[in-house]
């Protein structure tokens, strides 16, 4: 039953079309940011420059750039929050705005099941647009690094950054879902969600979700995404918002 709903939601032609247009653009932004590096302004005092083996490669300049470049591509994160809000609002409002929600909700599915499958499908698209490009850039643009590449991808720094990226999309998703069930208009929901998530960045306030992007440099210096502040903003707050929107979803009228 649930599987049917999820495959129906992820197979929605409109959402697949939006993803086909947006995800390659997101990957392009990341790749262009990664290839833009090429600067060496550091000066190291020490013994002879070491030859890196897979176990020591995480201290090389290449590893450092691989870990730090995503936080230097603001276009990627802005477009990612736009994409995540569009997908969430399309999932939660498009059927109601177009009117076919009435026939959908008359099918023998529980409202809770419909809500969960909508959230799950949105999460699938959000992860596809964020974590997937991050890994693809690291794998496909570094074929010559292959001896050390796998140790870089398996390092805790990279995994922590993927966790922070997940926090980012999870936060944007939960805010958009809340506005999607609160407002009775697709455009209004999208606008509200986009402004709430992105305006703090333009006013250089260190609020989530963009504080997670800043966290990338903290992770390089030994920080962890599981610290109380990060876990509260990246997991607890979104889950609270999702529970809140679940209440609105269950108690509110369809349409």
């Amino acid at each position, binding site marked *: 039953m649930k599987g049917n709903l999820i495959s129906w939601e992820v197979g929605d032609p409109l959402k697949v079309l939006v993803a086909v247009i947006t995800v390659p653009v997101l990957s392009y932004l990341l*790749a262009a940011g990664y290839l833009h590096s090429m600067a060496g302004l550091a000066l*190291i005092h020490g013994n002879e420059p070491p*030859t890196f083996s897979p176990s020591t490669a995480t201290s090389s*300049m290449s590893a450092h750039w691989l870990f730090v470049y995503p936080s230097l591509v603001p276009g990627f994160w802005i477009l990612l929050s736009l994409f995540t809000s569009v997908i969430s609002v399309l999932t939660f409002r498009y059927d109601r705005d177009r009117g076919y929600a009435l026939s959908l909700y008359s099918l023998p599915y529980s409202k809770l099941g419909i809500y969960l499958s909508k959230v799950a499908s949105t999460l699938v698209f959000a992860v596809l647009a964020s974590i997937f490009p991050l890994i693809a850039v690291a794998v*496909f643009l570094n074929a010559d690094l292959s001896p050390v590449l796998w140790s870089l991808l398996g390092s805790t720094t990279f995994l922590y950054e993927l966790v922070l990226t997940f926090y980012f999309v999870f936060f944007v998703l939960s805010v958009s879902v809340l506005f999607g069930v609160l407002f009775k208009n697709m455009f209004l929901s999208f606008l509200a969600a986009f402004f709430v998530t992105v305006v703090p960045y333009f006013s250089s306030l260190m609020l989530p979700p963009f504080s997670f992007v800043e966290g990338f440099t903290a992770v390089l210096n030994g920080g962890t995404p599981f610290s109380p502040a990060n876990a509260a903003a990246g997991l607890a707050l979104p889950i609270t918002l999702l529970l809140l929107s679940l209440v609105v979803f269950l108690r509110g009228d369809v349409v």
Partner: protein
Amino acid sequence: MRHRFLIGLLVIMILMLMSFLAAYRANEHVRGYIGPGKIQLESGRLSYIPFHSPGWALLNISCNGRGSLLLKDQLSGRNLLDIPVEPHVSRVVVIPHEGTYSLYTNGSMFCSGYISELYPTSRTQGVLWVSVGVLSVLLAFLLWRWWS
């Protein structure tokens, strides 16, 4: 059409790999600057400039000082360059592939330079094009089987 999401995923991956090639083209003439910095060997301690190159590139380097200018590929351990500086040298060096490199010396000199003319190495191009080819064949097969 069945399995619309899987078809979309394949199209996304193909377009993504093509966009990587476009990203190389966009960064072809972008310059990344190195230094200026003083590299030296002093009482057994080295000062050196490490840098990262994201692909095949040309390094334009200019140094003033005394000693030999050395460039080490820190991933393979090979030395790519060993030229005397007496007292000035200006050289274009090929950076063969992506990775970490270090400029160092056995004397003492000031160096500055830039990297430009970035291209994907043949291995990176091979990985990208073979992946695009395999995914396209898979996509064509699935469209043939699933189109209804």
